[in-house]
């Protein structure tokens, strides 16, 4: 088994078929990269959204408990 | 499967109208195939526009074709089988959207689904009526259009027969799509998108029949394939539609 082309230039040219071959391989690389990368980005975004939602719920819960506590305190004062 | 078969035979015995005075459980609410079929036919006859519109569409679009591609008789006669078949396909597809819609909206589809009888026969009755009011008139009209498009004389009979067989398959296959999209508000284009690819074999063998006859070959084999497709579709498509109806009703 040996490299089939004399030079790098002839490897890229592929006897005139270079544009077709490289366009095909380029498109494949593009599509495969998009396939592999989109879920990673989406997962990151989802996690961020969920975390934000969790923080909001936590804040709401804390606000509710402090409000209840202050009410109780007010009743005691009365 | 076994128990279903028993129920079917029971429901067939309990013909509507004869059950009066019989015990509670035998109350015949299950419409038999004939009742279903006749009801659909009555409904179709009362909505005449549903019958006429696909036909008008078929004729109008085909009349447009020579305006688009030119009036040369030779070119038209070469394209005639394909054009007529594609238009028949579109006309069937467009009329199919409303196949289950009315019944879904007024709740009678739900009532049918509640019957202990499988949905196979109600679907078959509906598709049969749909074919009778769209496919058969299209086939009957096709010689006229063949004449307008300069179709060769030996192509008329195969065109008619292939349309009769093929539109039945189209109605059956399209029913699956209609059942899948019945719960959606505007299914028009989606229905075309999901059903068109499934129409491919019917289209190929439908035009193939006519082309073979025009080329002077026997068109028996192509008709046989169309018949085989119809047989498979008649066996499977109502089952798939029944499943799709249950899915849509759950929505």
């Amino acid at each position: 088994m040996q490299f089939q082309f004399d030079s790098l230039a002839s490897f890229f040219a592929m006897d005139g078929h270079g544009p077709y071959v490289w366009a095909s391989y380029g498109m494949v690389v593009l599509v495969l990269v998009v396939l592999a990368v989109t879920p990673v980005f989406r997962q990151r975004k989802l996690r961020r959204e969920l975390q934000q939602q969790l923080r909001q719920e936590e804040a709401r819960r804390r606000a509710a408990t402090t409000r209840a506590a202050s009410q109780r305190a007010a009743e005691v004062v009365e | 499967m076994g128990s279903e078969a028993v129920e079917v035979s029971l429901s067939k015995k309990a013909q509507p109208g004869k059950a009066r005075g019989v015990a509670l459980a035998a109350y015949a609410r299950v419409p038999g195939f004939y009742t279903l079929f006749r009801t659909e036919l009555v409904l179709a006859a009362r909505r005449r526009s549903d019958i006429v519109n696909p036909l008008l569409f078929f004729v109008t679009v085909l009349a447009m074709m020579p305006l688009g591609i030119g009036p040369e008789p030779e070119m038209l006669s070469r394209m005639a089988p394909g054009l007529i078949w594609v238009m028949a396909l579109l006309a069937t597809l467009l009329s199919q959207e409303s196949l289950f819609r009315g019944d879904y909206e007024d709740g009678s589809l739900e009532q049918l689904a509640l019957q202990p009888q499988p949905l196979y026969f109600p679907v078959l009755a509906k598709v049969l009526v749909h074919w009778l009011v769209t496919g058969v008139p299209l086939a009957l009209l096709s010689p006229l259009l063949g004449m307008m498009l300069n179709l060769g004389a030996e192509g008329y009979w195969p065109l008619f027969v292939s349309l009769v067989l093929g539109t039945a398959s189209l109605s059956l296959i399209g029913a699956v799509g209609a059942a899948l999209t019945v719960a959606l508000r505007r299914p028009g284009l989606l229905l075309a998108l999901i059903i068109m690819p499934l129409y491919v074999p019917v289209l190929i063998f439908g035009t193939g029949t006519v082309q073979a006859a025009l080329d002077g070959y026997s068109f028996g084999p192509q008709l046989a394939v169309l018949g085989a497709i119809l047989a498979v579709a008649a066996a499977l498509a109502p089952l798939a539609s029944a499943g799709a109806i249950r899915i849509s009703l759950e929505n």
Partner: protein
Amino acid sequence: MSWQWFHRLGSPRWFYQKSSAWLPWLGGAALSLLSVGVVWGLGFAPEDFKQGNSYRIIYIHVPAAFLALAGYYIMAISGAIGLIWKMKLSFVVMRAAAPIGAALTFIALFTGAVWGKPTWGTYWVWDARITSMLILFFLYLGVMALSGAFSREQSGDKASALLALVGTVNIPIIYKSVDWWFTLHQPATLKLTEASTIDPSMFYPLITMIAGFYLFYAWVLTLHTRTMILQREGRTQWVRELVGASAPAKA
């Protein structure tokens, strides 16, 4: 309780936790096989005496076409499992498989068209295989469109699973009929790929690429499935814990 493993397999949570261990292995193996195959196929495999160097597109065209078809069956089978055993996970897999399959079908179509230019002198030829691929692409698009059309997720799952199943019944028929149609209209002259006559020195890189594509498919399918699980199960306790645990305390 021998079925427990089966139902645990259907649990999205179980899959999410287990699959994180598989991912690096799958991804690493896929990428290394693919890079070996690409270098081998582009640089070291001998030139084809008839087609010249343009044949090197085979090393991506054929694996993509393989996976496009296999992917449809993977999608349909997981949909069927979801319909029959009501497994949440299998519907997620089905939905994740649809865009991946469509992308691979697109690759097969694109590379086929580009390959056609130096071979036939034109980008698009209604070659039997390419036409079948195109119809397969439409089938994928139909499943994707239908699954997205329902506002209620479960209905979309079931409806598109049923459509995918109907498609699997049709695919062999479509392939056969397109094949027949092609031989009718233009007798086979030069086929892009003829597996029987391929030399071993060209064949081994092809096998490597096919294996690489399969692994890549598995890897990407897992990635997409995991993302969709996270999206769907956002309400559940375990996702909240997972997200909360990995959250840097920013607030």
